């Protein structure tokens, strides 16, 4: 579904990605792991069009979308749940969710989608009218996840969705990701909780200093001694 080849990009004079290639198959859950500053977030930002690519290409279902820009990507069904929550602070929880559904052409099924998110995260239901900026860190993270799902994407890019979530909510979150994958949505997942991500994914890439250094089935990476030492802490 998503095909990235030789992607290069950076900020100012900093090179963040030095030519990476990866592919995500339809309906797959692909994990991207790597150390702080490796360029994981940058990869996702480039796919969704927030950061322009300097070289290389991004193809979505065969079409070149390297310079499509965020709006176009969303129209093509790519949603990005950004790093660091990034909720709209002066809008209520429900308005934030409504922003997630901004591009949806029709309101059909909108109600059901709200309810689905509220049942997944009951805390959000409780706080429907609270300004998102005053939510606790974890509550904001739940909101960010819910918001990304509101567009009914075909491909979701999750950037550290477990960040700041309580252990029981983390589990729930992984369950949700598993279930949307099972429902046919493709997922590209960046996670520091590498163990959980590698367990859950169909395929994984390891990013170091802006280059892909390893890829394979999740289980294979878990067993790799380098990965164990550098990312799993054992």
């Amino acid at each position, binding site marked *: 579904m998503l095909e990235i080849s030789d992607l290069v990009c950076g*900020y*100012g004079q*900093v090179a963040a990605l030095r030519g990476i290639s990866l592919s995500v198959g339809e309906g797959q859950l692909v994990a991207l*792991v790597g*150390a*702080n*500053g*490796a360029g994981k*977030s940058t990869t996702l930002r480039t796919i969704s069009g927030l950061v322009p690519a300097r070289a290389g290409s991004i193809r979505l279902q065969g079409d070149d979308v390297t310079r499509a820009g965020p709006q176009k990507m969303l129209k093509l069904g790519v949603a990005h749940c950004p*790093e*660091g*929550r990034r909720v709209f602070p002066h809008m209520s929880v429900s308005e934030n969710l409504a922003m997630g559904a901004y591009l949806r052409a029709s309101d059909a099924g909108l109600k059901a989608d709200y309810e689905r998110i509220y049942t997944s995260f009951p*805390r959000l239901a409780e706080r429907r009218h*609270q300004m998102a900026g*005053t*939510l*606790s*860190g*974890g*509550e904001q*993270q*739940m909101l960010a996840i819910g918001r990304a799902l509101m567009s009914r994407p075909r491909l979701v890019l999750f950037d*550290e969705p477990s*960040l*700041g*979530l*309580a*252990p*029981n*909510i*983390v*589990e*729930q979150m992984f369950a949700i990701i598993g279930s949307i994958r099972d429902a046919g949505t493709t997922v590209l997942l960046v996670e*520091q*909780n*590498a*163990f959980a991500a590698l367990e859950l994914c169909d395929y994984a890439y390891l990013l170091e200093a802006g280059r892909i250094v390893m890829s394979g089935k999740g289980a294979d990476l878990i067993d790799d001694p380098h990965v164990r*030492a*550098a*990312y*799993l*802490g*054992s």
Partner: protein
Amino acid sequence: MSTTSSSAILNVEHVGMKFGGLTAIADLHFDVQEGEILSLIGPNGAGKTTAFNIMTGFLKPTQGRVLFRGRDLSQTRPNEIARLGLARTFQRTSVFADDTVRDNVLIGLHRFGDDTRAAALLDRLFPTPAARRAENAVRERADAIIDMVGLTARAGDKAGSLSYGEQRLVGFALALAVEPKMLLLDEPVSGMNASETQGFVRLIRKVRDEGVTILLVEHDMPMVMEVSDRIVCLNYGRLIAEGPPEAIRTDPKVIEAYLGKSAAKLEQREVAHA
């Protein structure tokens, strides 16, 4: 629950906090002993960050009070609390984004070698030799702190251009620059992977060994269980459990409200470690 004991560095006494109709903290009561690593855990929205905000003077509790080394903090402003030796980090990344990492730490060290002599004012206004010496000392100290958190390679980069995990380290370095007696860390390892977390644990231990008491808020349970001397668990702003890690891990109330199935995994890991 413990009452004010002589070795407690921080006493939280029946603190409550309401936002409009919402009770974020209800009658919170616990102590932190000098030199320990105490973790504060609890579900999202339980009131942990709010408790930090109260302890550091950013919020005034609607009820109760906090004592730091026996001193009531209710009328004390955040900057004064920092000067008393109680420093914190923030849950959301918080750095001086437009300055380099080194300048960040220098700002944090703005009181380094503080002295109230009248001559200090002169040093400020004229480039006396004493002023130059002080300036060199402060720069050395900054580099030492940066080295300690492992950011030496990025010391000259703008803090805002660092990756998320690196920015969290800058936040930690800033708190260290205050030379605190006690550190409040709000989710310090979020955004770090397991190996980076282990490095950070070593760092915390080192800081503690230098005599700094640590109160930790963190959702990374393996890390919490490993590093804590004692754990306090909150739910809906109330204390639901308090005790050593082993007790908390198996406490049914904590499992129900917070740990969920991960409790079982923690046990496995423990076994694997053993």
